C-alpha cells in the first residue's frame, strides 16, 4: 500500500499497487494517483438496505421451480456486503472522410438472364464519409465480479458522488484500476475500430482517411451491489442483488431433494416406457414406436433437465 494525499484537501489515502483512481475519505474528491481530480463522478443511490436486498432475494427464490419451501424459515445469513463498483461511461461523436480502393467486378460466360459462370474482380478508387455516435461503458476495476461486466445498471437516478452516503451503508468503495486518459484512449480506439469496419464495407484497402473523434461526455460512476452469502442446511450459497433496483443479478439457491426425487422419478418413468416401446415395437410398428417412444424419451429429458436444476439463475431482463 502506498500513501497518497488528496489534491483537494491534503488528507492521506492508501492506494494498492494497481489502484489508479481513489476517493478521498475526508472530502469525497475522486482523484488519480497522479494527482488529477475527476469532476464528473456519480453514484447510484442504494435504495435497498441489507434487509430489503435479502427480502428481494427470498421473494425471487420462492418463485423458482423446485426451490426449498422452507428456505425463508431456515435461511442463515453469513454476510451481506455492499460494494460500490466503478465504471466509466464515455460518449463519442466520430466522423471520417476516407479514400481507398474498392472492389468492382466484370462478369462473363452468361448462363441465363443476368446470371454468369465467370467473374473477374478488380479494384478502383472510391471515397466516402461516415458519421457515428458511440455510447461506451467500461468496467474500471479488476475486482468487479464477472456477472456485472455486461450488466445494464439503470442510471436514471444517478447523483453526485458522496463519500458519507456510501460509508453510511457500510459500503466498500472499490478503487479504479483505469484512469480517465487510459479509458478515453480505449474508447477512441474502439470508435476508430468500428469506423474502420464500416469503411471496409465500401473499400478493400484504405489509402487515406481523415478521422475526427470527439469525446462529448465522460463520467465515472460507482454502482452499488449487495453481495449476499447465506447458508441452508449447512450448505453455502451466494447472490448479487442490485442495490438501486432490488433486482437479483445472479444467485445460487437450494433445490429441494423432494422435488429432485419426484421429477427424477417422472423422468425415469418416461424413459422406461419410451425405451420399452422402441424396443418392443420398432420392428413391428416402426412409426408408432418412433413417434410415441421417441416422444416419451423427449418428455423424460425435459423432466430430467428440471430434476438436475443447478439452482442457479438471474432475474429476467427488464
Amino acid at each position, binding site marked *: 500500500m502506498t500513501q497518497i494525499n488528496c489534491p483537494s484537501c491534503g488528507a492521506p489515502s492508501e492506494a494498492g499497487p494497481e489502484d489508479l483512481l481513489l476517493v478521498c475519505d475526508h472530502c469525497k474528491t475522486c482523484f488519480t494517483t497522479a494527482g488529477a481530480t475527476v469532476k464528473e463522478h456519480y453514484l447510484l443511490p442504494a435504495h435497498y438496505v441489507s434487509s430489503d436486498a435479502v427480502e428481494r432475494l427470498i421473494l425471487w427464490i420462492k418463485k423458482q421451480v423446485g426451490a426449498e419451501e422452507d428456505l425463508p424459515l431456515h435461511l442463515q445469513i453469513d454476510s451481506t456486503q455492499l460494494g460500490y463498483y466503478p465504471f466509466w461511461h464515455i460518449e463519442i461523436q466520430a466522423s471520417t472522410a476516407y479514400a481507398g480502393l474498392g472492389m468492382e467486378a466484370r462478369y462473363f460466360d452468361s448462363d441465363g438472364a443476368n446470371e454468369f459462370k465467370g467473374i473477374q474482380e478488380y479494384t478502383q478508387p472510391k471515397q466516402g464519409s461516415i458519421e457515428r*455516435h458511440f455510447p461506451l461503458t467500461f468496467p474500471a476495476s479488476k475486482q468487479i465480479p464477472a456477472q456485472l461486466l455486461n450488466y445494464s445498471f439503470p442510471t436514471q437516478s444517478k447523483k453526485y458522488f458522496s463519500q458519507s452516503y456510501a460509508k453510511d451503508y457500510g459500503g466498500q468503495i472499490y478503487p479504479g484500476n483505469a484512469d480517465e486518459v487510459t479509458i478515453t484512449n480505449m474508447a477512441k480506439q474502439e470508435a476508430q475500430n468500428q469506423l474502420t469496419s464500416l469503411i471496409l464495407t465500401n473499400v478493400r484497402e484504405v489509402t487515406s482517411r481523415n478521422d475526427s473523434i470527439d469525446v462529448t461526455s465522460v463520467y465515472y460512476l460507482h454502482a452499488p451491489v449487495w453481495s449476499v452469502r447465506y447458508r441452508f442446511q449447512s450448505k453455502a450459497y451466494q447472490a448479487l442483488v442490485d442495490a438501486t433496483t432490488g433486482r437479483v443479478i445472479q444467485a445460487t439457491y437450494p433445490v429441494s431433494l423432494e422435488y429432485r426425487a419426484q421429477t427424477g422419478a417422472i423422468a425415469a418413468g418416461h424413459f422406461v416406457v419410451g425405451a420399452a416401446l422402441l424396443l418392443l415395437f420398432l420392428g413391428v410398428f416402426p412409426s408408432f414406436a418412433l413417434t410415441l417412444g421417441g416422444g416419451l424419451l423427449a418428455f423424460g429429458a425435459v423432466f430430467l433437465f428440471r430434476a438436475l436444476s443447478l439452482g442457479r439463475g438471474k432475474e429476467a431482463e427488464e
Partner: protein
Amino acid sequence: MSQDTLLAGRTTQCPQCGASIEITPDAIIFVCQYCGWAGSPDGLEAKGYSMLPPLPRTQIEEKATQFLKSKLHESFVQSSITEAKYIAIPFWRIMVWAHTRFNGYATRTKTQTYYVGKQAMTRSYTVYVPTQGEWTDQIEFKTVARKNAVFFGLDEITAMIGRSEAVPLDPKVLIAQKMQVLDIEISVEEADDSARNHAEDQHLHRAQSQTSKLYDCHTDTRIASGSLTLYPVYNLGYEFEGRTYRMALDGATGEVVKAELPMTRGLRLTYAAVGYIALGAFTLAAFILSLSAQTQSIAPFAAVGSILAAIPLYFATASQRTKRKKA
C-alpha cells in the same frame, strides 16, 4: 439526517414558482413537480412537446385487477397489488428519409445434367448474379430520451409510441396524477444522430441480405420530422399465493403491455395435457403416413413431432411465464 439528504443531487430553481427542484446531472429539460413549468435548467421554456393523457390511477389498477382475474383467478383482489409507480417517460420519435445505393453480387447454385454413355449424371455449379439497386424509404426511429434507461416493459411501450394521437404537453395533468416525470437527457440533435445511424444500419443490413458480396453501399439520410412525447407507464408489483410478480401497463389506454404471471396448477396441467395430446396426434399421423411411405421417411417426422410435443411440457414445468403485448 436521512440517507437521501446525504446525496448531493443537481438542483435548479423553477423560473415560474421559484421552487428548488432536484434534477439529474444530465438533465436538459425538466418539469417542475410543483407548478408544472417545463423547460431547461437555463430557464428556457420547452415548447412543441406532446404527451399521451394519462388515465387515473384507480382506473388503471382496476384494469390490472380485471386482467389478473381473467389470467389467474376470479378471487384476485386489488389489495394484492403491493407496489405501484406511475411514470411519464420521454420518448423521441424521429422520422428519417434514407436513400441507399448498393452494388455487389448474389450467388446461386444450379445443377446440370449430363450423360456418360447412357447414364444421366448431375453436377452443381455456382453462378454469379450482379445485384445493384437503390431505394428510398422513410424509417421510424423511437428511443427513450434518457441515458442508459432500463425499465420493465420498455420494448413493449416503445412499440406503442406513435400509435395513439398525442396532445400538446400539459404537465399539470401529469402532476395531478402524482406521476414521476422523468427529466429529458437526450437532445434532439443526439436523437437525430442516433436515428440517422439506425437508418444507415438498417439499409446496410438490407443490402447485405440481398448480396453474397457487397462492393459498396452508400446511404444518404435526411431528418423528416422529430417529436418528443411524454408517455405514461404504470409499473406495479402484485402478490399471488405468497409470491410477487411485475407488470407494466400503458397509462394512456390501461392495456397490459408486459406481465409476469405465475404458473398455476391448472395451467401446468393444461400445458402438460397439450403436450400429451400433441404426442398422441403425431403418433396417429405417423401411423397413417406409414401406410403409404417408407420407414426412413417417417423417422424425421417422428423426431420433429416428439420435440414439438415436448415444448408445452417444458413450459408446464417452468417457474413463471411472461405475457407481452404483441407489436
